[in-house]
């Protein structure tokens, strides 16, 4: 009965998400854990996100230049760069890098905690293991992915600016002005960070669910890590389409 099994798995994941939200209480211990997690999965992901953003900005500028050259509209390359980054590339690529960098580590950590019976031990001591281990990671991800998206986009736009203005030779004033004219504060800028927060929630929930429910063996941990990356990436890409269809009207 694959259909029943799939529905059950979905239900279990949904219940897990609810239990994470319910376990999130603003205690002293929670904020201490949250700070540590923001450092581990947010601040430590900064280099890869920054470098990734810069290279994406460079290549999108080249691509846009090539495509717009046909119409003699190379001055509009920043429109493509700005809209492309805010609407799709920024949140999605940041989330994918975040999953690779932090999602895998969340799943591995929780899987190993499961394998070494630390989660059971927390429960035996009367500490809610979800509140202690999962909730801080979840909220850290919800907070960090938008922050990392900001770094990604700013590095990409800076790199695109250097490529377009210094290398290709587009006028710098045109570059900024046409980007400002086309990127709307509400429709593009804010939506990008709403998307990023949702992607952060998805990637942390998937990674934590898979890790938390891993087989308590060494192999189970490795399976959980793989599964976290694969499932979270797929879900982010799928949700990106749904969110784009819902949020972008024009």
């Amino acid at each position, binding site marked *: 009965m694959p259909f029943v099994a799939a529905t059950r798995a979905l239900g279990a994941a949904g219940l897990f998400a609810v239990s994470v939200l319910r376990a999130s209480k603003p205690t002293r211990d929670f904020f201490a854990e949250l700070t540590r997690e923001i450092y581990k999965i*947010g601040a430590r992901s900064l280099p890869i996100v920054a470098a990734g953003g810069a290279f994406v900005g460079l290549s999108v500028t080249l691509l846009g230049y090539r495509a717009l050259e046909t119409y003699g509209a190379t001055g509009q390359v920043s429109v493509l760069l700005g809209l492309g980054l805010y609407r799709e590339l920024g949140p999605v690529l940041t989330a994918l890098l975040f999953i690779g960098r932090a999602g895998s580590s969340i799943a591995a950590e929780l899987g190993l905690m499961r394998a070494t019976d630390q989660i059971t031990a927390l429960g035996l001591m009367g500490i809610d293991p979800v509140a202690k281990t999962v909730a801080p990671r979840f909220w850290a991800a919800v907070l960090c992915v938008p922050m990392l998206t900001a770094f990604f986009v700013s590095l990409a736009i800076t790199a695109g600016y250097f490529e377009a203005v210094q290398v290709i030779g587009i006028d710098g004033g045109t570059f900024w002005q046409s*980007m400002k004219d086309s990127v709307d504060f509400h429709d593009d800028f804010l939506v990008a960070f709403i998307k990023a927060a949702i992607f952060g929630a998805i990637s942390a929930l998937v990674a934590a669910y898979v890790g938390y429910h891993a087989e308590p063996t060494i192999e189970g941990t490795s399976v959980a890590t793989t599964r976290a990356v694969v499932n979270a990436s797929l879900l982010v890409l799928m949700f990106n389409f749904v969110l784009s269809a819902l949020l972008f009207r024009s």
Partner: protein
Amino acid sequence: MRGPRLEFAVGAFLLLALASLLVLALASTNNKWGFGGHSYPLKARFSTIGQLRVSAPVKIGGVVVGQVSDVSLDPQKFDSIVTLSIDERYKDLPSDTSAGIFTAGLLGESYVGLSPGGDIETLKPGDEITLTQSAVDLMQLVGKYMFAGGGTPAAANAKPAAASTSSTPSDAPTEQTP
């Protein structure tokens, strides 16, 4: 890494992120923070609006002063009614202001251009601009020019090679292939 240093690193990360958000918002967006509260509506009637869509800019002398907030069709007269929301700063437009739909460049976006007249009376919020000029369909214009007074079906049949790809009447090909 322990307590204070970790907190410093996290604080630095968050501050840096917020700073970069602020710079991005200022440098790369159109800086429209508000929710459109400081504008007033004007209406204008056009027989055809071409490619004009909601949120297209409204310009006076090339400067953006507002945007198109709604496009609807009059159910009686079948005119398009375009609602413009104009920035509160430009609230003293003369009542003989005229509106036209123009296209930026050859293939660019459509926008509404206003040209203020000299009347002392001003347009109140919700008033209708009576002097309007509808959108000019470039392709229709080109088509009319090219085919004005052009070949009748008989003339098209006389030159089948030239006419086969263009606007031959629908019965022409069946006559040519018996």
